Every structure is written in structure tokens, then in C-alpha cells.
């Protein structure tokens, strides 16, 4: 029971991070119908920017920590957003209207370029960060096993949930969100109503990148170890979360992220940690066999 609770806490934390990345994929897919395979690298860049900002701000302990966290969060979100914006301008906008495969190849190309760019500029070795936030609550004790809910896990879940709430409000309640949904459903028609489609797409990339940056910062703080390759597996996992939840659906991305996080945590806890990725992808296969459009996805309607 204690062990179960601990893995549940770990799983939810992991799932929150996957969910943040997954939203970026699903939004871009929704609006331009392509998988932005460089999104994992945007997440990795967010992690690096947070790490560098932390190191520059210095190990300012004590009362300064909340402020430092906020500053790093803002720096990481805004700089990563610039990367997201530039990615769309350079690699995807010129290919708008060409076959989808072209944009897909371009995305993979950008993914490799960004990885190599970070590898060259930051070196290939893993980077470590001293724990910034330590400690936590001891929830339960059974023999020599203690269930710990660390402060870091609380921060991750609280930040993620509040960002998702803000984000959900933007999508459902504001003019921008309405424009995004309009572009998703019919871009030509949206333009005829005076919506600047290009700008709406740019904003989508900016929002997705900012959320990925938050995920990057959380991973840096949580694990304390990153390298230039960290975006690859995280990206694939988040993409899996999207497909599981139903790609194109934002609640689906959140749910999918949570499920992938839980599956991984429980599998590593009860079976073998080596096969946790296999477990996550196997569940994906099973879901797709029975619900090809994902858990919350709408079945594809044939347009006549």
C-alpha cells in the first residue's frame, strides 16, 4: 500500500511533465495537421535555458529561492517561445501548402539541427544541477519504507495544473482561442472572417514552446541531470501520450500524459525498470487497436 502510494505520487509528477509537452504537439497537430517532431528538442532547449539561468543566478539559497524560480521560469518560457516561433517561421511556414510529408521531413531535420546545435554549443556531457529545492512531507512509514511527497513534486503538480487551467481558459473563452479553433476547423474560412491565420499559427507555436519550457525547467529541477539528447525520448513519450489521449484534443493530451506517467511509474515499481518504455508503448498499441482515435479523440469524419 505504501509502495503503491509512492509510485502513484511519482507517476502523477511524471505525467504532469509529459502532459505539458504533449499539449504542444496536440495544438500544432490541431491547427496545421502536422506532427512537430522538433517539439521534444524545444523542450530540451527549455531545460538548457533553465539550467543556464539557474547557474547564472547562482545558488542563492533561502528566501531567494521562490523569486529565483519565478525569474528562471519567465526567462525559460520567453526564450524558448522565441525558438518555437523561429522554428515555425524557418521550417514550416515556407512549406505551408506543400505535401504533409515535406513538413514532416523538415520537422525531423530541425530536430536533428537543434540537437546538434546544443551538443556543439553546450558539449555532449551530461549537465547536473545541485538540488535547488530539497525535502518534503513524510506521509507514511512502514518498516523501513517511507512515503515521501517532496516539495518539488508539489511544485510540479501545482504549476502544471494551474498552467493547464489558464491555458484551457485561453482556448475556450478568449478571442485568441476562438480564432485557434476556427483555424483548426477551416483555415480558409477563418481568413475570410478577418482572422490572421499566420499570426494565429505563430501564437500556437509560441504557446506550445512556452509550456514545453516549463516542462524542461521542471525536469531540470526534478532530476538535476540533462543532456542534449533528453528531448528525444521525452518527445516520443509525449507524442505517445497525445495519440493515447486522442491527437488534436487538449484534454486528451493532459489525460494521455497522466496515463503514460502512471504506467511508467507503476511498471518500474512493480516489474522491471528496464522495460518501462516497452510498457508505455504496449499500452498505446492496445488502446489504438480498440480505439484508433484515442481515448478522447473524435473519430475522423470523412469530408465530402
Amino acid at each position: 500500500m505504501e509502495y503503491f502510494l509512492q509510485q502513484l505520487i511519482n507517476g502523477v509528477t511524471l505525467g504532469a511533465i509529459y502532459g505539458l509537452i504533449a499539449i504542444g504537439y496536440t495544438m500544432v497537430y490541431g491547427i496545421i495537421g502536422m506532427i512537430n517532431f522538433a517539439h521534444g528538442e524545444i523542450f530540451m532547449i527549455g531545460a538548457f535555458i533553465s539550467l543556464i539561468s539557474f547557474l547564472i543566478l547562482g545558488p542563492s539559497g533561502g528566501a531567494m529561492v521562490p523569486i529565483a524560480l519565478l525569474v528562471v521560469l519567465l526567462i525559460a518560457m520567453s526564450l524558448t517561445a522565441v525558438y518555437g516561433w523561429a522554428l515555425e517561421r524557418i521550417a514550416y511556414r515556407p512549406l505551408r501548402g506543400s505535401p504533409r510529408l515535406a513538413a514532416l521531413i523538415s520537422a525531423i531535420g530541425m530536430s536533428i539541427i537543434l540537437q546538434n546545435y546544443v551538443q556543439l554549443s553546450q558539449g555532449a556531457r551530461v549537465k547536473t544541477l545541485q538540488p535547488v529545492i530539497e525535502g518534503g512531507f513524510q506521509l507514511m512509514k512502514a518498516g523501513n519504507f517511507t512515503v515521501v511527497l517532496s516539495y518539488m513534486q508539489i511544485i510540479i503538480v501545482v504549476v502544471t495544473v494551474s498552467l493547464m487551467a489558464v491555458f484551457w481558459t485561453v482556448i475556450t473563452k478568449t478571442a485568441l482561442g476562438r480564432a485557434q479553433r476556427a483555424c483548426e476547423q477551416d483555415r480558409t474560412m477563418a481568413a475570410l472572417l478577418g482572422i490572421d491565420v499566420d499570426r494565429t499559427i505563430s501564437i500556437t507555436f509560441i504557446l506550445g514552446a512556452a509550456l514545453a519550457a516549463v516542462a524542461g525547467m521542471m525536469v531540470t529541477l526534478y532530476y538535476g541531470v540533462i543532456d542534449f539528447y533528453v528531448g528525444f525520448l521525452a518527445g516520443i513519450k509525449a507524442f505517445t501520450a497525445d495519440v493515447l489521449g486522442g491527437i488534436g484534443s487538449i484534454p486528451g493530451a493532459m489525460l494521455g500524459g497522466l496515463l503514460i506517467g502512471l504506467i511508467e511509474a507503476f511498471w518500474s515499481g512493480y516489474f522491471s525498470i528496464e522495460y518501462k518504455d516497452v510498457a508505455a508503448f504496449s499500452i498505446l498499441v492496445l488502446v489504438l487497436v480498440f480505439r484508433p482515435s484515442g481515448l478522447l479523440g473524435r473519430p475522423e469524419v470523412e469530408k465530402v
Partner: protein
Amino acid sequence: MTKPLLSVEHLSMQFGGLTAVDDLSFDAADRRITAIIGPNGAGKTTVFNCLTGFYPPTVGRLIVSFGESQYQLEQMEGFRIAREARIARTFQNIRLFPQMSVLENLVVAQHTKLMNASMFSIAGLLGLPRYRTVESEAIEKAEHWLERIGLLARSDWDAGNLPYGDQRRLEIARAMCTNPAMLCLDEPAAGLNPRESAELNELLISIRNDDGIGVLLIEHDMSVVMEISDKIIVLDYGRKIADGEPDAVRSDPAVIRAYLGEDGDAQESSNV
């Protein structure tokens, strides 16, 4: 003399070797319903597609003037045509946002106004008073239109679930919510039954008289065209063969030869 609302000058549109529109010139006035008719493949929809910036015309100018402003549509990006030159359009095959509610379809049409008030959504997110005012005005306008087309009771339905005739009228209402100077309707009566078609006539006449804008209409349904148009332009193989008031056009021998006389299958929709 004041400039007409829309002035099409020597418009030609070629697709490879095919000339879809050939040296077409006509004017469409403010507060008038101007109909474009012609047999299938005469180039009517192509004219609309040039107007709304889908294709740049091969030759010609498309000028919109109102107030002190004048716009050359062929040099403008699509969304600016809607935003600045204030041209709104509907399609032969309805293009509502099917997964948005009926009300939202009308609110999204007022995007420019809302977006300006929302300052990159920040004001909208915080619910600042100025944005709230603009938003409630937008909803009021949407509800006004829902009342006019008789859909107020179904404002929270998904637009895609409405019956066909209601979708047609909703599409016109959505176009009107963009605050257009000119409304371009591509076969609004297609697929409507006689009762719905009569309702449509009433709606279009009220748009002309009460909202005071110009309407440009492509239509096959002669009962609609002859009843409500102030002016009719007849196209055949991309060229204008007649231009005038309904009675004059009806008795024009060239028109009878090209269209009314030979082509009895006038109800069928074209797909140019």
C-alpha cells in the same frame, strides 16, 4: 458621381489554357442586390474567388470603395480583404465551423474587434472591464442576428447539427457579423425548399434595406434572382453577355439563347 461600392475592371482569369473569366467588367452598388447568373461553368464562382483573394487574377482590377477609402482587392491578402475592404462571403457548400456552437460561429466572425480589445488575450483572460464590454456587445450582436434568422433558441447547438436550411441562414448571419460593406453569396438558395427560399428572399431584402449594404449574389434559382435583384449580370463562357435590370435581362435575346432557352437544367448547381 460617387464611385460604386465594387468595381470590377477588365477581370480575366486563366487556368493554364482555360480562360474561366474573360475581360469582365461590371459595377455593384451599395444598397443594391446584384446577381451574377449564367450556365454551369460560366465562371461565376471564379469571380468570387478572385474577389476574396483565393487566386490573383491574371489581368484586371477589383476596386472596393466606401467612405473615403478605396481598396484594390487583387493586391491584398485574404484576411485583410475581410478585415479592411470588408468583403464577406458564403459558399455553395456550407462552410460553418461545425464543432463550434451556433453562437460561437457568430462571435468568431467578430474576431478583429475582440482581438483588438483583448490585447493578446491578456485582458480577455483577466476579464478586464473594457474587454468585457466589447465581448458582451459581440454577443449581443450575435443574438440579434440569431433572432433575425430565427435560431435564438438553438444558440448552443453545434453548428454542424443544424438542419441544412438553418445552416445556410447561419452562414449568412455569420458573414453579416463581420460588419461587411459587401456581402457575396454563392448560391444561397441551393437545396432550399420553396418556403425556405421565400424566407431567404425576405432576409436578403432586409439586409439590403435595413443594413444598407451591397449584396452580390450568384444564383441558379430564377425565382430568387428575378424577385429580389436590382441588377443582373449574365455570364456565358466567362464573358459578360448582358447587364441590366431583371426585366431587360429576361427579354434579352442573347440571354435567352445562352441560358434560359437552351439550358433547361437551370436548377443544377455549378462547380466552377
